[in-house]
């Protein structure tokens, strides 16, 4: 039995190894499946997966499966997806119950006495800290209420060649992978060089959960008042284009 994960959201899980009206259900993004035997036909892998709370046997195309990542990296992706699903794939808002309470949980992860009711306190960095802390295995990460704090530390670690769970790199230096972070400036343009010498500036980061042909898909907090996807374009060589005010990518070293 081999563990695999869904590469995309709404992956079809089928009763028989062929296309057609044989769907047992669908797998969510990054969902775990257990491949139970050899490939059948041109793509079909026999597998078991949790569908509507029950473990079901069926078939899934190998083209929409990926290998597991390293422990901490996989845990980080899984935690982001879990929160995204908890916010109904980004459709539920921060000011609705019980989602207000979930935002309060994010704040508590960095020791802030906030309950999520105050919408004027931005919680996107608290979400990142919550996800990284919950995933585990990221000792040394700078948990903070502001993105720029951990971005600065990650860039310094890279420039000093120091051990750190994330290294901050220029977007031309690293192709984003699952579990990395994409960082963009807000309001006022920030460069990589500025972020290397300052730790207080307006920024936002999201965590990469899918790498496609021309973009990466990320999950972040306080994105349209929810936990939600953002798409960032990548070029033909796999590097971020910089569109969307992106100035750095944090490489996951775990």
């Amino acid at each position, binding site marked *: 039995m081999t563990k695999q994960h869904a590469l995309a959201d709404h992956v079809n899980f089928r009763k028989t190894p062929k296309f057609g009206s044989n769907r047992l259900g669908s797998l969510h993004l990054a969902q775990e499946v257990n491949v139970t035997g050899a490939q059948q036909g041109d793509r079909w892998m026999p597998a078991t997966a949790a569908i509507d709370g029950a473990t079901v046997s069926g078939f899934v195309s190998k083209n929409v499966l990926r290998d597991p990542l390293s422990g901490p990296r996989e845990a980080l992706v899984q935690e982001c997806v879990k929160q995204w699903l908890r916010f109904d794939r980004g459709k539920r808002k921060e000011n609705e119950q019980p989602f207000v309470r979930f935002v309060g949980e994010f704040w508590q992860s960095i020791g802030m006495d906030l309950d999520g009711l105050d919408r004027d*306190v*931005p919680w*996107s960095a608290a979400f990142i800290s919550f996800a990284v802390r919950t995933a585990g295995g990221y000792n040394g990460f700078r948990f903070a209420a*502001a993105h720029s704090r951990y971005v600065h530390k990650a860039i310094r670690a890279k420039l000093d060649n120091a051990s750190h769970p994330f290294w901050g790199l220029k977007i031309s230096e690293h192709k984003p992978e699952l579990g990395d972070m994409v960082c963009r400036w807000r*309001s006022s343009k920030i460069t990589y060089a500025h972020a290397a010498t300052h730790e207080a500036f*307006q920024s936002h980061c999201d965590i990469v959960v899918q790498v496609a042909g021309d973009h990466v898909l990320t999950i972040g907090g306080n994105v349209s008042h929810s936990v939600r996807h953002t798409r960032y374009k990548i070029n033909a060589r796999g590097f971020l284009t910089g569109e969307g*005010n992106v100035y750095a990518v944090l490489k996951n070293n775990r």
Partner: protein
Amino acid sequence: MRTLVAGIALVIVAAAAAGYWQYSTVRPVKLVASEYDDVCGTLSKVAPQDGAMAALHARPSAWSRQIAHLAAGSQVIVCEVSGEWSGVIVKDEACQIDHDAGHTVDYSGPCVSGWIRSRLLGLLAG
């Protein structure tokens, strides 16, 4: 000679008018909606280097009217940046910021809003 005097007078009047305009007009703080960012996504505190009060201006200009003086430690919500200035709303419990407008609008209260030099702010969250 008469032309020179008239020219000087014109310059003085124009300067006075510009000064008056700078002083009297208000540049509202905007709640800027974008494809990527939620409005007013940064919380900062007022941190003047000498620990004194920091002036909140009506426009992003030192020549504009001072609306208020903010004590060190006051919390402000940063909504936009213009050069060396930040457009802020002085945080209170009920500032009624329309986070869901989906388009850029002027903030009209009830909290005090205006412009402060960005270097006088310390980042708290966002």
